[in-house]
């Protein structure tokens, strides 16, 4: 299960090809319209590859792939810092909609529009900060008026609709869909460390929303397993990119009359980067298998993969800057884009200290 199947390799290559043709990392340095680029990329990948339906069961019209294929795709996203909203889409939104689909016709409707590329979704963290005016039960399909604030919502400028898991007083959670293109939704862009994944605060002031139905369990939690897997696999991609750029530079750059990659100080640093990368990749593959297989050890495997993948990507992107020397410290070089991503991604769904403490609790119980 650790080696890629031929089919998985083909998926990696085809996504890699599409991203290499359709997206330049360096464009993050040039303009701020990363949201629009993300939306365009998402639509293209969805049209050519059926990305939205990757994890949707075949009987609902998707390709019925597993977490293992998702990890393969996410690694390619990380490698290119692709701004298309893979994380909110396949980490939270689509899994919640698929869960609701049998009981909820509005969820089925949105899913169909996602599939057709008409809607790009983002997802708010589960929150009790949002209220609806309602005197009757929140049946699926009901239009409601929504009040509240959603903090740090991803996919700024790329998504047109936000899914809001609204915690009720009875600790049940209702999923709402709120269109972003309405006057009662105020968007406050946040300055982001990670230029490739901009976030936004949303203020909803009697905004119109649609009730999709009750959600529960892992998909409706603050850190769903698939979302954590995507972030870990993206971190592997970031590490892979850091190593690629470092090695390419070490082969070309000449100092003291020799390519710097021939010096052991550089060669050994690159080799250590490789060792970290390949270990992280192995942990993430194993975690993806464990999640796909609903293995009893999946939670531990995922926690280990996430922690190690972040440790590695933070170290490798810093190593990249060291190999590059002065040029690596400039704005023009893309190295800092990867470094920013590695640092910022490690702060999604927790932080490294609390992850390690959680591991200690699991392991030393």
């Amino acid at each position, binding site marked *: *299960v*650790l*080696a890629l199947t031929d089919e998985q390799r083909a998926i990696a290559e085809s996504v890699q090809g599409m991203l290499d043709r359709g997206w330049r990392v360096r464009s993050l340095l040039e303009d701020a319209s990363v949201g629009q680029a993300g939306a365009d990329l998402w639509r293209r990948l969805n049209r050519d590859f059926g990305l939205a339906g990757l994890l949707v069961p075949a009987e609902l019209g998707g390709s019925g792939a597993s977490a293992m294929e998702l990890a393969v795709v996410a690694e390619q996203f990380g490698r290119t810092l692709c701004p298309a909203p893979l994380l909110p889409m396949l980490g939270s939104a689509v899994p919640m909609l698929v869960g609701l689909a049998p009981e909820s016709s509005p969820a089925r409707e949105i899913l169909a529009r996602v599939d057709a590329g008409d809607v790009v979704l983002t997802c708010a963290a589960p929150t009790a900060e949002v209220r609806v005016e309602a005197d009757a039960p929140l049946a699926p399909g009901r239009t409601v008026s929504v009040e509240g604030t959603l903090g740090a919502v991803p996919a700024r400028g790329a998504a047109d609709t936000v899914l809001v898991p609204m915690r009720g007083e009875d600790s049940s959670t209702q999923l709402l869909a709120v269109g972003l293109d309405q006057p009662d939704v105020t968007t406050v862009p946040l300055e982001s460390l990670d230029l490739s994944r901009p976030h936004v605060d949303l203020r909803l002031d009697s905004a119109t929303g649609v009730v999709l139905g009750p959600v529960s369990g892992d998909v409706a939690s603050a850190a769903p397993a698939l979302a954590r897997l995507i972030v870990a696999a993206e971190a592997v991609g970031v590490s892979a990119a850091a*190593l690629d750029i470092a*090695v390419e530079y*070490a*082969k070309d750059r000449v100092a003291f009359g*020799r*390519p710097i*990659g*021939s010096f*052991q100080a*550089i*060669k*050994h640093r*690159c*080799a*250590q980067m*490789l*060792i970290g990368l*390949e*270990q*992280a*990749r*192995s*942990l993430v*593959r*194993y975690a993806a298998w464990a999640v796909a297989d609903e293995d009893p050890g999946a939670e531990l495997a995922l926690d*280990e993969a996430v*922690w*190690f993948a972040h440790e590695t990507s933070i170290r490798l992107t810093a190593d990249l800057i060291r190999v590059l020397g002065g040029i690596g410290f400039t704005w023009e070089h893309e190295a800092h884009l990867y470094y920013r991503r590695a640092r910022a991604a490690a702060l999604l769904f927790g932080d490294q200290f609390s992850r*390690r*403490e959680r*591991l*200690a609790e699991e*392991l*030393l119980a």
Partner: protein
Amino acid sequence: VSWDADQQARLREFLARHATAPSHDFGDEAASVEEARTFQRALFDAGLAGPNWPRRFGGLELPPGGQAAYAAELDEVSIPISPLTLGLNVCGPAVIEFGTPDQRERHGRATLRGDEVWCQLWSEPEAGSDLAGLRTKATPAGDGWNISGTKIWTSGAHYSDYGLLLARTEPEEPRHRGLSMFIIKMDMPGITVRPVRQMTGDSEFNEVFLDDVILPADALLGERAAGWRVVTWMMGQERTSVGMQLRHPLMLEWADVRRLVAEMGGEHERDPLVRAQLAALHVRQRAATLLNARIQEEAVAGGGSASLGSAAKVAEGAVMRDAAELACAAMGAPAWSGEDAARAIAAGAALQSPGLAIGGGTDEIQLNTLGERVLGLPR
């Protein structure tokens, strides 16, 4: 011929009956070798030996999927074949790969059956990491060869029946182009084996003195002056073979460290810093183990890079050093005393651990290999 459920069941049944952890103390080598031979012979006679060996030498010649299934069965049990692994995974396969029909007939089956135990005579006092600079000479003498020189770090030389010896046949050729590989019987006149005492106090390696050892013409394995090809092939084999990654008996795994800290560490077990280090160690151990498993899976499936094995070796060594470090540090001052079993275990691991970055190719050489062969950096 594929690996079917019937064979799987027979292997499982065999292992249930015969598999035992090595029953002899580390150090009682004569007994360990005998135990290994007995096990392997029974496995061979049951028609279950050599998953990747050709059928004509008594192996199973399994396709990749079958080899993986076979390896998975072995993972579940403990078998006492450590003294044979070099012969089964490296030397035997090398004779089959490079040998003449006669050499293959002579050694193939006997090696797989555990009748012939093998060692590798490569490193020298003046040629360790720089193996291509070795000086042991093989001079044509009559129909055969006269071998003179000194080898060192030879595991198992004192109990092996045969060795694969790398020697210089073309003194005028530069470095690796002048080397040839020989099959040498270890009880030939002129061979003296002297154990090397390690910093742990144990002796796992030997110095081997070769004084005018006369080998027959057919001792040459592969073409003359093609020894480097053979040695490179063998190194690749060593890293990707199923069952080669046997843990050194002195080294600790995470579960050992955790137990030692719990037994001896007192309040350390509740110390957030110790807990954090234990958690990190667990992840790193799993990362190194999974990398190794992935490399083997890819090798069996016929992909991946054999040189990536160096990454797993460096990673595993680092994890085991940290395990020894943590066990020793967490046990407090009396760790030096060795008066009780737990502290002696921690001290033994601490003494063994520097060797992990040296044996089987130093970490520095492994990093060169990774940089040059995997990443394509210039020499």
